[in-house]
């Protein structure tokens, strides 16, 4: 009997009830192709921040699934995005990652495209084409829709996709608000880009994971790089290879978590601000200690101290960075870090912020070095004929939490749990069924209990 296609087994691949995931979703090439088509081919995807392309002719090359698009500042101040492939014979019309141009000239035969992607020049059009070529029919292929939300530029290849604010919903918008509200935000020049041998979903799963820092980032705790509660030590059995009990300072199990799960798969998960500030004695959220910001973030939003995630691959950090996880192959993902600062901050404030951006995440980051290690090894083990049959477990707090719906948000107040990860995988499965937007929305309305 022929093996069943993985796509026909979606129901058995992800189980919200059991909190189990089939490991094959992390390495199967057929699944990867379906993701590119049904998720990255349809979703609103983050391209860049408007501050990266301030002047006319500024461009930034961004990934959309397996395609590369040029995001370009127009003469009239607007923004357009089109595929970086010549309408003649396909050559890339731009081979720089970012820069400024008057137009894009293809280096194959010289077809030239304006900032708006229109074909404005064809060498020898009368001599070679006898003036028969209709230029207006061969512009660069544009994305179907492009919109900005508070300076964050997104695009989709699906012209039937709902407008961006609707796609983001209350949860996704809050995720971006939590970055935009810090001031007059701009991207610091320089996008860190590096390559990890991992499936992109491991990098997403990790965003919400407050169980791992105590072990993964143990060395950073030990050096005081992350503030740790002084008298709480790990129980439950982490023992070193010599048999010694590891005295791990940890985020206490009763640390209050705020989880928000939203339509289409967006989620936020992490400590409640008060719980975090009390337990660690630091106040990293001073920027929101004023009434206006509190009001704009709302009653629930202003308590969030964890990491928001915009489905499928945009992570906003509590420290003011945005990370894009770019799938290149089933087992290869590029991590891109966009780092923000407030245009009106003092040089001292900016220097301190830059230092924290550089020292936490990125390939030399004192935290992310260790994360990449875990993702790569986890991915590797999904390839073994027998290893891949072992399910991924997401059972923490399973079935114990109430979902409260308020202000358009679906909120879970609970100790550290794995609800946001499960929600991401659940939504991922629904996307892969390639439903209509209405169906997708209905199937990703959060349940009442988790």
């Amino acid at each position, binding site marked *: 009997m022929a093996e069943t296609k993985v796509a026909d087994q979606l129901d058995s691949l992800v189980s919200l009830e059991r909190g189990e995931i089939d490991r094959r979703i992390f390495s199967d090439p057929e699944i990867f192709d379906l993701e590119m088509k049904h998720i990255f081919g349809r979703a609103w995807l983050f391209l860049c921040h408007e501050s990266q392309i301030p002047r006319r002719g500024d461009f930034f090359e961004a990934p959309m699934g397996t395609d590369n698009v040029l995001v370009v500042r127009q003469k009239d101040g607007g923004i357009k995005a089109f595929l970086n492939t010549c309408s003649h014979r396909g050559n890339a019309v731009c*081979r*720089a*990652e*970012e*820069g*400024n141009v008057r137009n894009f000239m293809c280096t194959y035969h010289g077809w030239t495209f304006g900032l708006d992607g229109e074909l404005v020049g064809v060498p020898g059009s009368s001599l070679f084409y006898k003036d028969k070529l209709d230029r207006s029919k061969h512009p660069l292929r544009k994305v179907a829709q492009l919109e900005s939300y508070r300076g964050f530029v997104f695009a989709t290849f699906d012209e039937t996709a709902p407008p961006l604010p609707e796609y983001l919903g209350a949860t996704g918008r809050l995720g971006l608000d939590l970055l935009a509200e810090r001031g007059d935000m701009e991207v*610091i*020049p*320089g*996008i*860190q*880009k*590096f*390559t*990890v*041998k991992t499936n992109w979903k491991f990098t997403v799963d990790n965003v919400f994971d407050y169980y791992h820092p105590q072990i*993964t980032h*143990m*060395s*950073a705790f*030990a*050096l005081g*790089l992350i503030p740790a509660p002084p008298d709480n030590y790990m129980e439950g059995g982490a023992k070193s290879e010599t048999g010694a009990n590891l005295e791990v300072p940890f985020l206490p199990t009763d640390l209050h978590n705020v989880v928000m799960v939203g339509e289409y798969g967006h989620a936020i998960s992490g400590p409640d601000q008060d719980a975090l500030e009390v337990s660690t004695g630091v106040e990293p959220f001073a920027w929101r200690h004023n009434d206006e910001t509190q009001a704009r973030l709302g009653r629930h939003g202003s308590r969030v101290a964890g990491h928001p995630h915009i489905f499928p691959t945009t992570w906003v950090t509590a420290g003011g960075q945005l990370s894009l996880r770019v799938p290149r192959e089933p087992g290869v993902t*590029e991590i891109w*870090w966009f*780092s923000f600062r407030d245009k009106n901050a003092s040089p001292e404030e*900016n*220097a301190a912020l*830059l*230092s924290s*951006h*550089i*020292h936490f995440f*990125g*390939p*030399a980051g*004192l935290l*992310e*070095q*260790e994360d*990449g*290690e*875990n993702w*790569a090894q986890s991915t590797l083990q999904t390839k073994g004929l027998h290893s891949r049959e072992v399910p991924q477990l997401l059972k923490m707090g399973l079935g114990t939490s109430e979902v409260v719906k308020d202000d358009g948000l679906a909120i879970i107040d609970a100790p550290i749990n794995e609800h946001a990860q499960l929600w991401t995988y659940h939504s991922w499965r629904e996307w892969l069924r390639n439903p209509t937007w209405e169906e997708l929305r209905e199937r990703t309305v959060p349940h009442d209990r988790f």
Partner: protein
Amino acid sequence: MTTETAEQARLTAVLLQHEVEQFYYHESALLDAHRYEDWVFLFTEDTHYFMPLRRTVTRRQLHLEFTKPGEMAFFDEDKNYLEIRARKFATGTSWAEDPPSRTRHLITNVRIGEKSGDELQVHSNFLLYRTRLKNDLDQWVGRREDTLRRTEAGLAIAKRHIFLDQTVLQSANLSSFF
């Protein structure tokens, strides 16, 4: 007597070249032997250890290729942060380096430039070959711009700017020193 003076100057240059190269070989040996705390000792208190990001840009915009201090970077370290990094390895729980990676630092094309007071400008090329775990392999090639300073303890690194020959980094981490 001018020929003798010229010869003398050449000899001085050769001796200095030898001293600087030996300093780099010693430095490389410390790193490849995982003696990071001894390595940090080679830096001055006011050192600046910096690895900018590199971008693929057109020739016309080559001046924008590297980020500058004050912009994003892979490393932007003072002595304190170098010490923190060295101590992190020593915790025994810095998993990206435990099991430790195996490195080989090859330093070549050492060119001594301007000298002023007790400081020397030195440019060099490097190949850092690294293997990790069973079969991970990274190779980084690039160039370093150092300011070396004569101190009582010998030569010390007062500034090191490292320019990698990669834009999208082809590695999962930079848990090695350059």
